[in-house]
């Protein structure tokens, strides 16, 4: 149980562990390795998780009190003997104290906690270099690094231990950006610009997903936030900024020809080549990514072949058409894509 909370300060961890033992189901929610609101890895999500535990205990207390009241009311037998007036007086007392005063006090506490947490969640000062633009596409995420002037897709690299500001827009329909382990969600609203700050305490990979229904492939619109130590992050930025190299392997060279002559270039960009389409993800450093098709598949050759040959099979309704290629061409194309480190 402790292992899933390793990112937390000791006292909090002990607290959390106690809870986990008491509440195995909820604890499981915090501990089975998936992205969980209850296993926060970033400052914002931690504040919210703390708030949740406060709410949880409040709610549990209220539920217990109400059910106790109800249970006693159901089993006690003296009640019937009370005359009308006594009952009316007693009833009013119950309603006033348990139904009005009690809830009012609790709600005041809850509201105070809300405002308190809201102030703590105010955006910290973010370095200009740490501003990242996220654009919701159907059904993938475009990620632009304006400072470093390149774009990638479905993978947001951030430096760990530093706050990052995301500027989120959508040119099409509503989406919602949600990385449960790091931060609450924010919608991408066409015609508006929203921002969200993120901070990952530790290096790691955090899964996120679109949370606002955005059409047929809403379910497969995931992404990864990859937090790296600042120096590794800087190196990554440097590497991404470069244009794609020319393949040396003959098969990959053949693949590049296939790529540039097929309809791939209508939608995809590979910097350093003549492919400058902007409807689909930028593929300049495609091979460095961990996943395919918005965190739907692992980025391995077999999956890639299946995806390129017929995306509709994997994400029905996806806007990428099937590739009209022979087997040989496909082989070459895959080799080329795999070379785009």
């Amino acid at each position, binding site marked *: 149980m402790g292992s899933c909370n390793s990112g937390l300060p000791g006292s909090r961890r002990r607290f959390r562990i106690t809870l986990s033992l008491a509440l195995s189901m909820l604890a499981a929610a915090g501990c089975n390795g*998936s*992205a*969980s*609101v209850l296993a926060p890895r970033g400052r914002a*999500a931690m504040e*919210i998780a703390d*708030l*949740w535990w406060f*709410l949880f205990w409040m*709610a549990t207390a209220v*539920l217990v009190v*109400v*059910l106790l*009241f*109800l249970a006693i*009311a159901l089993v*006690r037998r003296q*009640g*019937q003997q009370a005359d*009308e007036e006594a009952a*009316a007086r*007693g*009833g*009013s007392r*119950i*309603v006033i104290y*348990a*139904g009005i005063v*009690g*809830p*009012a006090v609790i*709600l005041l506490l809850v509201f105070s906690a*809300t*405002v308190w947490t*809201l102030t703590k*969640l105010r955006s910290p000062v973010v370095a200009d270099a740490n501003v990242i633009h996220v654009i919701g596409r159907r059904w993938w995420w475009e990620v632009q690094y304006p400072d470093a002037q390149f774009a990638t897709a479905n993978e947001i690299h951030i430096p760990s231990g530093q706050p990052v500001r995301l500027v989120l827009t959508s040119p099409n329909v*509503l989406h*919602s950006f*949600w990385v449960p382990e790091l*931060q*609450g*969600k*924010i*919608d991408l*609203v*066409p*015609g*508006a610009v929203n*921002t969200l700050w993120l901070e990952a305490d530790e290096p790691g990979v955090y*899964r996120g*997903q679109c*949370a606002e*229904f955005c*059409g*047929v*492939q809403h*379910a497969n619109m995931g992404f990864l936030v990859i937090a790296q130590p600042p120096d590794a992050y800087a190196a990554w930025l440097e590497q991404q900024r470069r244009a794609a190299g020319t393949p040396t392997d003959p098969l990959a060279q053949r693949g590049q020809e296939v790529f540039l002559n097929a309809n791939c270039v209508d939608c995809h960009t590979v910097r350093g080549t003549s492919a400058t389409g902007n409807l689909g993800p930028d593929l300049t450093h495609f091979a460095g990514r961990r996943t395919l098709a918005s965190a*739907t598949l692992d980025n391995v050759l077999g999956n890639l072949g299946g995806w390129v040959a017929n995306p509709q099979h994997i994400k*029905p*309704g996806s806007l990428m058409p099937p590739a009209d290629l022979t087997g040989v061409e496909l082989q070459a194309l895959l080799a080329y894509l795999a070379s785009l480190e």
Partner: protein
Amino acid sequence: MTSTTEQPLDGTIPQRRTLHDKPRVLSPAEPLHQQLSDRWADPPGFFGWFRSLQNDALGGRIMGTAFLFFLTGGILALLMRVQLFRAENSFLSPDTYNELFTMHGSTMMYLFAVPMLEGFAIFLLPFMLGNREMPFPRLGQFSFFTFLLGGILFYTSFLFHAVPDTGWFAYVPLSGPAYSPGLPLDFWLLGLGVAEVAAIAAGVEIVIAVARMRAPGMGLGKMPILAWAYLITALAILFAFTTLLIASLLLELDRKIGTQFFNPNLGGSVLLWQHLFWIFGHPEVYIQFIPATGFVSTIVPVFVRRPLLGYNYIVMALIATGVMSFALWVHHMFTVGLPQIAMSFFAAASILIAIPAGIQIFAWIATIWYGKPIWRTPFLFVMGFIITFVIGGLSGVMVGVVPFNWQVHDSYFIVAHFHYVLIGGVLFPIFAALYYWIPLFTAKMLNERLGKWNFWLVFIGFHITFFPMHISGFLGMPRRVYTYDAGLGWEIYNQLSTIGAFILALGVLLFIINFFYSLRAGDKAPNNPWGAGSLEWGTALPAPNYGFAVLPIVHTRDPLWEQESLYEGDARLKAMLEDLDQWPLHWRGVDHDGAGARPTEIFHVSGPSIWPFVTSVGVITMFAAEIFTLRSLVVGGLIIAAVGLIGWHWPNRIETTERELEFERKHDILVFPNGSPIVTRWSMALMVLLLAICTSIFVFSYFYIRLQQPIWPYDRMPLPDLLLPGIATAALAGDGGHVLGEPAHWPAQRHGEPARRSADGLSAGRSRGTLRLSGPAPGAVRPHDERLRLALLHALHLRRAHHRGRHGPESVHPGVGVGRPLHGPGTCGRGHRCALLVRGAGPLADLGRHGLSVAAYGVRRTWCEKNPSCQTQRHMNRAAPPDAGVIAGCGSACSAGRCSTASTSSRATSLRR
């Protein structure tokens, strides 16, 4: 909790006095029963079905239809649960899945919950309130057919492979023309639009039924809580559904006509839809919840043998819930990027609504505290409700907490939360109510053993289904995903949910079995089988279509528990009801009551008619044709609807007979054989309210879009011409002022004896009371002003109420909004042709007239204050009110096809005939 002791329910607790005078119920053998039944019976046969409008039949049909939609929606949910049983399942395609959750949500919200509860209201209210009918039976009939046909229209989308697929809140731009081309969203907007029209129609009827048509003596403070709940809900329906209709209209205009209200690229706003939708959508939840709590407040006292404690608190809580529900819609939008201060405000409002809920919960607990529970199925469902709803309410408070909302919004946590409040908070009470009230109409008890199985399966199945969803939400599972990856740890929770869903479905199946089993082989229910205290159980079982054989006089909140007799009271009232028992029952008479105690008039409700059905078909044709953009067919539908409306309101004159006049004189109460002017005026007020809501929504939308734009007008577009909207708004305001301001003097003046009537308090009683919509308190208006105003109003458009009384029971109501004959003394020679002309001219003429009359009044009054010669006018008015003579005479003569400007009294004319 599983105590199976079958305590007899006919016993009452010792300290509760019961009626020593049993309610007078007629045995089927008595001739009066036969006579009354025949009078109130619906027409027989297949075609009769389309003409029938009896409240219990209609209510039952609406509920039955809603229940079928509930089953359909449930099956869609089961299909979804099968798909999610396994990670990466391929049972359903993504398209199908998206269609299913859209249809599931929309069906449950629009076609099940609201119609079900409205059906209950139409079914029960006349019995509960001790009256014979709803105020507008034909409107109820229209509501039923419109709902039924609208639901069918919505579901025909399956036949066209054009099933809506953008969720029950249909967020733009996804639902806009660019991302949802083709028919699906038109089916959603227009198919449900029809159902919304039906909901509003029923809402109007419910408001008036509760506000004006209660048994003698049933003041506001003695109304059953359920009636309060329905009053508040129905008012909320008017506000909320009208908003949704306008929002749907704007979106449909975007889709079909090319407006850009919601297109951010051309000056529109995406968030405008969300605001409009949730201004509807959040109250929608309370529209369902408030009557459900009304069921609970009715059932709890019966099964603990103790009158409800905290009645006043509950009423206040209900009102507070209804009002506050319109102030917290933004908590559905905490993630769209609003300013923090706005979010804090709405967070406060959202969690504050827990207080009225707390009041109700503890009032029920207090009632149980001082009583002794009897564990029958309705009570079990109520207990299930309290437990489940408290959990759902607590997670609701959490969801109102902004930062927490950011995490769980649009995740499965929310799915869990709202099913806790909607199934726990609404469906459980509906089941309780079904078990409780079905015997009233079938005279068969539902089986108790099956009932308990039903409850436990539903209760356990529910929690197995929805509790794990809290956790899958925490684990990051968003709503509305047709599939999920295996490695995310969501599978086990989804499997639990799916298993639970099938257990829940089994429970629902048991209910259906139980219902049909009870019809065939159920125990016969004795009269008042639960030993309840509320009025509806004072009838024979099955409840006769005419309601009460003798109308009851109510002195307490639980008349069957606390009154010695249902027929004792003020001597004059008693005498009147006894006469009523013998006489006006030969027509479909209902009496109606002011806010206080005494009946103010007796009127004839409309009888069976095919025309509401025709109107409904016309409306459906319009909407259906618009889906396919067949504009000529839209016009066709419009014509059918217009013809239907004309037929519906066709003057159906019944002359006042000497016997009725005698009754009037003897009991000092007004008898209207052609429908109630007061009810008509209420409906007119509600019509104005509806229009005012529409106007407000448009104004809100305008300012919302305008304030969103950094530069206005957008792209140098010309600003709209304000003249026409200005005139329309002024006319509307004038109309509102008129309806609100017009005193209720005219009926008193029908006999030319205003002084006496005012003196004995009947007229005053009408305009008194907390729910009065009838303008300033009697003392607040100087008499000569009032007189002058009346004279002016009447000079402009005669005594509409008189004409309404003469020209048909529903000649004015929200279905049309007008119908006031414009003919003055010189123009009314053509009889009802001129009346029809005005009816056809539509609300505009009406509103215009009102604006004019108010303006004229203002001018005249100003002039009068400066001009001494006005004194004479005042004097004249006081001496010979024009409405008593000339105009009334005309109305009556008119109806005979002749015109008379002579000042013969209407009464004289009709008597001669």
